[in-house]
């Protein structure tokens, strides 16, 4: 892919992230609740709060300036690489993001690795033993697994592996060890879709004409699998794994809550509850950017894997 195309895509990514963050901010701005009041309510437990005090606090926060002036302030700061400070904690938004992003990203990556390992291996075995006992069992487990809510599975895992077997730590503050159980839960939950995609992909390819030709040419089964079939289905796997990583970064709120993990999603939800605008704008901007960039990476990988895509880009 040409450097100019990549640069163009990055510019589009930044514009998209700005648009998404502004839309989210605008929607929240017009939703019920004054940030100053919500924050003071949280601080004081809601008692004794006079409206004059709320007004004064709104002035301190700058939330009484209106939709566009507030966005303009944020935008000017953002251009200077400053995402502002959180109303609630007083800490810089970038600091708040980076300390949580590490947890969320690690969780998302570990989850994806687990679901990838389970999904690809089980999908391949399931295709190999098509309509045999193993295949039927795998499909049944997949159907059940897809129906089970992840929070329920999390509580069951916690009960079995932490309380009964004492194999894993319960707390979310023990670094890598804390991520094992939650990523296993989410990895298992996410693996079902992957198993199905891999199984269907392999079966479709097995009956394709090029595979018959390969067999006729005397290529071994393992070589057919590794060099051709697996490569052909890798595109859909890459796309699905990328989407999983993207949705997991900000979307594993329930799991973060249950396992006490300080992740991005949890913090963002709490900030939305008190309308902590700098955090909302900053987090959504960075997360949108991450999503668009991850999608770009996914496209680049597809470009490297699939000559048809390279051809399409070349023709354009």
């Amino acid at each position: 892919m040409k450097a100019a195309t990549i640069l163009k895509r990055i510019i589009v990514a930044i514009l998209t992230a700005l648009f998404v963050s502004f839309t989210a901010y605008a929607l929240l701005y017009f939703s019920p609740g004054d940030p100053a009041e919500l924050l003071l309510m949280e601080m004081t437990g809601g008692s004794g709060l006079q409206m004059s005090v709320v007004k004064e606090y709104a002035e301190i926060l700058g939330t009484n300036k209106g939709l566009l002036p507030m966005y303009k302030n944020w935008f000017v700061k953002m251009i200077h690489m400053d995402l502002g400070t959180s109303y609630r904690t007083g800490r810089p938004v970038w600091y708040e993001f980076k300390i949580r992003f590490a947890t969320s990203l690690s969780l998302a990556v570990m989850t994806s690795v687990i679901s990838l390992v389970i999904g690809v291996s089980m999908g391949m075995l399931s295709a190999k033993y098509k309509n045999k006992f193993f295949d039927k069992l795998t499909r049944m487990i997949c159907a059940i697994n897809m129906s089970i809510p992840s929070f329920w599975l999390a509580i069951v895992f916690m009960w079995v592996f932490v309380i009964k077997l004492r194999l894993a730590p319960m707390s979310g503050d023990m670094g890598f060890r804390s991520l094992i159980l939650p990523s296993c839960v989410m990895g298992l939950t996410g693996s079902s879709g992957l198993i199905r995609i891999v199984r269907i992909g392999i079966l479709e390819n097995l009956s394709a004409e090029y595979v018959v030709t390969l067999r006729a040419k005397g290529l071994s089964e393992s070589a057919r699998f590794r060099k051709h079939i697996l490569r052909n289905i890798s595109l859909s796997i890459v796309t699905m794994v990328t989407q999983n990583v993207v949705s997991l970064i900000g979307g594993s709120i329930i799991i973060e809550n249950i396992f006490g993990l300080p992740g991005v999603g949890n913090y963002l939800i709490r900030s939305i509850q008190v309308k902590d605008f700098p955090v909302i704008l900053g987090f959504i901007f960075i997360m949108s950017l991450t999503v668009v960039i991850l999608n770009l990476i996914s496209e680049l990988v597809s470009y490297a894997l699939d000559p048809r895509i390279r051809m399409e880009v070349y023709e354009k």
Partner: protein
Amino acid sequence: MKKLLSVLLVLCLSLSLASCGSNAVDPKNTIRRIGAASDWTGEGKTLVFDSLTYRLSSTEATKQLVEVTHNDDYTEYTLKVTPGVVFSDGTKFDANCVKYSIENESLANSLGFHQMMTSLDVVDESTLVAKFPSTYATFEYELSYIVGVKVGSLSDEGAITEYIGTGMYVLDEYVPDSIGKFSYNEKYWNKDRKPSVTTVEWKVIPDIPTRVMYLENKEVDVIGLEHGGFTDYATLKQLSDVEGLTIETKANGSPSMYMFNYIKGPTTDINLRKAVSLAIDRQRLCDSICYGFATPAWTYILDTEQYAPTNGVKFHYDVEEAKKLLAEGGYVDTDGDGILEKDGKNIELYLVTLSSETYRNTASLVADDLAKIGIGVRIDALDASGYYAKSQVGDFDLCFTHPWKQPITYYTWRCTYTDYDSMGTGFGFDPKFKDYYDVVSAGYDKEAIQKFFDMFWDEAYDFVPAVTLFSGGAAHVYTDEVSGFKWTRGDGTLNLVELDEVVVNRK
């Protein structure tokens, strides 16, 4: 294929091995963990920071970081910094720190003195003078809400950004929204309050079932230290059957209640409001929703509270009397659908409440009680923002409201105007109440204040601006390895979490 399976097996084994092994050893003087709903920087900040004055009750405070004296008419206060107070990094706590804390701490903005005080001057290194244009007697008490911080350690919005305080503990390790680890502050100035616990961990576990699981598994030593204690009644019931756990409850002096919209709509009718107050079976609420961890509330504040009614006025439960009142008010069921009508319209009250389980269940039972006297109820259980939005504009007939707490503060907050606020209609239903503002808000003529409140309560029980439900018991739940937790003396981040009397019984 074989290679893939081998990789899978190796991965599983590595994960299992990595996760094996016991957790850290817990010495006798360590609180393994405090299981909390939110970060320590909220309600747990008093582990690291001392408040300027020490709160004794819901209306009184005494010296702590500063000693407060005043002139006869409470218009001028002298604040004297307690000698020997230093921050944990060795910096001296002086008058400039007091001034900075009072003028900049975010919580200070919400306190009454903030708008009244005309000046706060540093006289010397350890003395300040605060002046008020008229009598203001609650200044010393309000200072118990403000913690002493180093100059420059607050953000523009007033949040603490540098966690170096004068408090009993020093912050050693902190992962926001996850954990705070503390050890005893060797430079702690108040040697009379030396705790036996020298290391503490504050663990954030937002999800209630998980927090409970942590406690049952002894991964935490205590839950419920925040915001008046743990009040998820169904879970308390579940925990009461668990061996090795102690549940300590404390009756809340401020019962839960619903506010009527007495400004517009069907609940402007006094007969209807009184009938509702008579028809609610509070005992059933306590038994079915609170599992015995709460008691029926017949009064706005408990008799034990300061400025409670002295003549024993209260609500009572009488369904027949409720029906009689409705009949007298002209409510009849002409179409036989079980719902009463007035002026040709069905009486259906719009009840706005919060969405947590206890609030939802309470609303359902109240609706059931009111159905028995022919009043329909439409329930809207909303999150905090939605609830505030509805109550602020009077879009309700009946709504959950803030309970009566600290009568003087509550009076200054909700009894001086007849309008909607963020929690309903308030108690300013009689314009003459605001005439007592100077007497009540000044806070020092206790006899006059009691006289006002006696008059106020008489009118309130007659006018029924709100109806009481139950008096919930806050709870601390802790394992048999620890004991000695004090009850907090405040709400929200005004809480004072104190561990100086906690004892670890772990062997």
